[in-house]
């Protein structure tokens, strides 16, 4: 049986990566914290079956993405949550910044405006450094889909960040690539 100490040692160091990913994917800090906590609860419950030589980080991300997916399903059925999102979407007016590719908020705002399937792939590969193969496993999609979504995500982001003004409610077209 694996112990609590080894769980803390192996799983807790990934907390910050999980939290920043949850914040970006849920778009809400409180929901992100709930999702990360739920991730650790689930991870602990199945930690006895966890193999030490396997990738703990990928395992935790896989759980987190499932938790977020489930929460997103609930949120879609919650009209109040939708109303919050509409309100929130008008707050961001990212402009292409002067100089070196923009400040952090502009870039993150632009990422938030991507359709979730593009945003998730871009985030996992570029920010979290997962390989295409790992990303495909995490999201349960073929590797070819990872490549095409990444290509389109980068193209859309570049289009937004180089445009003089970005429409606040515009989203990436083309779901289900």
């Amino acid at each position, binding site marked *: 049986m694996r112990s609590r100490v080894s769980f803390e040692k192996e799983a807790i160091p990934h907390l910050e990566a999980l939290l920043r990913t949850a914040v970006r994917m849920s778009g809400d800090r409180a929901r992100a914290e709930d999702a*990360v*906590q739920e991730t650790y609860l689930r991870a602990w419950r199945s930690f006895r079956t966890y193999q030490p030589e396997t990738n703990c980080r990928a395992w935790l991300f896989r759980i987190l993405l499932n938790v977020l997916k489930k929460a997103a399903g609930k949120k879609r059925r919650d009209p109040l949550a939708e109303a919050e999102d509409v309100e929130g979407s008008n707050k961001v007016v990212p402009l292409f910044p002067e100089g070196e590719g923009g400040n*952090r908020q502009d870039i993150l705002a632009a990422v938030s405006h991507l359709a979730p399937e593009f945003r998730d792939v871009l985030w996992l590969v570029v920010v979290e450094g997962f390989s295409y193969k790992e990303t495909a496993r995490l999201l349960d999609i073929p590797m070819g889909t990872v490549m095409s979504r990444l290509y389109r995500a980068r193209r859309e982001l570049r289009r937004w960040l180089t445009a003089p003004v970005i429409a606040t409610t515009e989203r990436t077209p083309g779901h289900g690539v």
Partner: protein
Amino acid sequence: MECKDIRKLLSPFVDNELGAHDAFTVAEHLEVCTPCQREMETLRRFDEHLRAAGHAPLEGVDEVRANILALFSPWAWARRWRGVGAAAAVLLFLVAGRQLFSAPADPEAAAFSEALIAETQLNATQPFSLAWLDPQSVQDVLRQEGLEDLPNLGPAGFHLEGARVCYPLGRVFVQLVYHSRNEEISLFVSKRWNRPLSGISKQEGFTIVPLGLRAVFLVSRESLENLVDVRQLAEEEISALSA
């Protein structure tokens, strides 16, 4: 390959995800094509900025970490004081006397006692099965169960460690876990529980004390020196706070 074909490969190229043959083709093309080279540099620069933005320090990570680690706290506590059990059990025997052996003859009460003990043992065996409530939720749930506020056992040296909702024998209870320096007790509160246990009972090293119709007072396997005082205080608190 033409530029439009090469540009489709630039994304996996900057991610080092192209096969050797394609990577070589792209690299060869970039050597002689300035626009594609510029395109690749833009992609790389953008990735660097996105990575830097994504990895910017988050506020409040320490608090989140502490909250998650706190889920372990009952376990940590139980391990710390496991050794105290034997000596403390003798004290409980002296305090509670013969009542400890008056196990409930009522089968339902016995089953209920076992269910409460099982809930308490979860603290030690499955720390992550405890979904601790946040302070606001504790207040809300307590009000639903007919208590206006948290019973204050501070005068007896016990302070609230956490609260959770549990389901002994399919009934909804709020479990309030209190700690003193070396003891743990739980108050199980529910307005749905409408019959008291028959009296103080002792099972598997636990002592269970009924507190009227609204709550059952459960003493952990470590016995309690001031059981009588704590029981009286808890009864007074619950009576005063009952809506």
